[in-house]
């Protein structure tokens, strides 16, 4: 497997399409983490994230001729499939409205109440990380994507814009709006509970 370390994603995909199993495994191990985390942050469920990851790479196996290097990178192609899968799942699960996570809200409120400097307090504490996660999940999908890609997956604006098929300016504005919504949501939680 070490023989593929210097190969680009394109090259690995070509080899995998030619039937080289090691190339497929290398590509999977290189990219599955990002795809899984993207789905996890977007859906909030490890089961769904697992399902999405599986479907993304299954599509790669089934649709051997679908990728066009002229239209973007392999990573972008994989994210594109993952995004479609995630949005489909969100649409599917929309009828099931999630109940407010009281424990997480309570943790957040406790933290915020004991912090003097900022109403948001220290969000890095273990118990409040979950609150941030819940707040991210409650964002509308458009804003959630921007926050997940740029803040949680550390992609550049241009890269995120490419994946979302929108201009860079749109990504910036969605990210800014998403962050503002997150702050608002976290503040509302704190006020309600305190």
């Amino acid at each position, binding site marked *: 497997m070490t023989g593929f370390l210097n190969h680009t994603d394109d090259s690995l995909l070509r080899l*995998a399409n030619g*039937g080289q*199993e090691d190339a*497929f*495994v290398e590509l*999977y*191990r290189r990219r*599955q*983490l990002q*795809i*899984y*985390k993207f789905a*996890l*942050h977007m859906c909030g469920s*490890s089961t769904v*994230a*697992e399902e999405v*990851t*599986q479907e993304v*790479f*299954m599509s790669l*196996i*089934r649709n051997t001729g679908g990728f066009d290097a002229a239209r973007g990178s392999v990573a972008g192609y994989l994210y594109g499939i993952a995004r479609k899968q995630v949005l489909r799942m969100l649409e599917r699960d929309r009828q099931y409205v999630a109940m407010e996570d009281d424990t997480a809200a309570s943790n957040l409120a406790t933290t915020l109440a004991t912090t003097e*400097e*900022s*109403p*948001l*307090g*220290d*969000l*890095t*504490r273990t118990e*409040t*990380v979950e*609150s*941030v*996660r819940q707040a*991210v999940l409650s964002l509308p999908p458009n804003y959630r994507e921007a*926050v997940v890609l740029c*803040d*949680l*997956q*550390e992609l550049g604006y241009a890269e995120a814009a490419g994946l979302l098929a929108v201009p860079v300016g749109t990504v910036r504005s969605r990210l800014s709006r998403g*962050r*503002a919504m*997150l*702050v608002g949501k*976290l*503040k509302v939680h704190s006020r309600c509970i305190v």
Partner: protein
Amino acid sequence: MKPGDEEALLAGLRALREKTAETGAPASVETLLLTEFRRRQLRNEPNSRRKAFLWIGLAAAAALVLVAVALADHQPTAVVKVQAPPAVPQPEMVPRETVQRAPQAPAPAPARQAKRRVQRPQSKPAPLAQEVATEFLAIPYAPGFTTEDRGQLVRVRLPRESMRSFGLPVNQDRIIQSVKADVLIGEDGIARAIRFVQ
């Protein structure tokens, strides 16, 4: 948004990012994908081999038909020459003055001569009862052909040597001669079977 709020939020997002840094799909996903990958490879392999054979077969059949058509185009001219009626006397090139002074038996009218030349009794199809044909032999690598499929039978002439490729014996003395054959062509234009006729 206050600067303090944004900093706190970014710190919270960073903490969430770090918490899930090593989170990935379980090994069972990789196993499942590998199983599917191998299954696909196994299924694709015979397909590609079958396709290669199919293309070889098509190329061979196309070449066969082309040769047959080329040979068929040449045959009629040769047959007419061989069967020209010898009884018809050729007109002599005699000067007009000589004919007036010593009249001879009238020469055959040119129109009649032309008419006779057109006659090609040998071009009449031979009665089928006189023909002896081999069984239909499948053309190698051609797609399958069942009794329910429709096709067309085309009479062609092939080099006698081509019988060898179907495992039939060939008389060495007549190897340069051609042989008649019926080629069964499917609705898709691909030759499926052949029988040699004598």
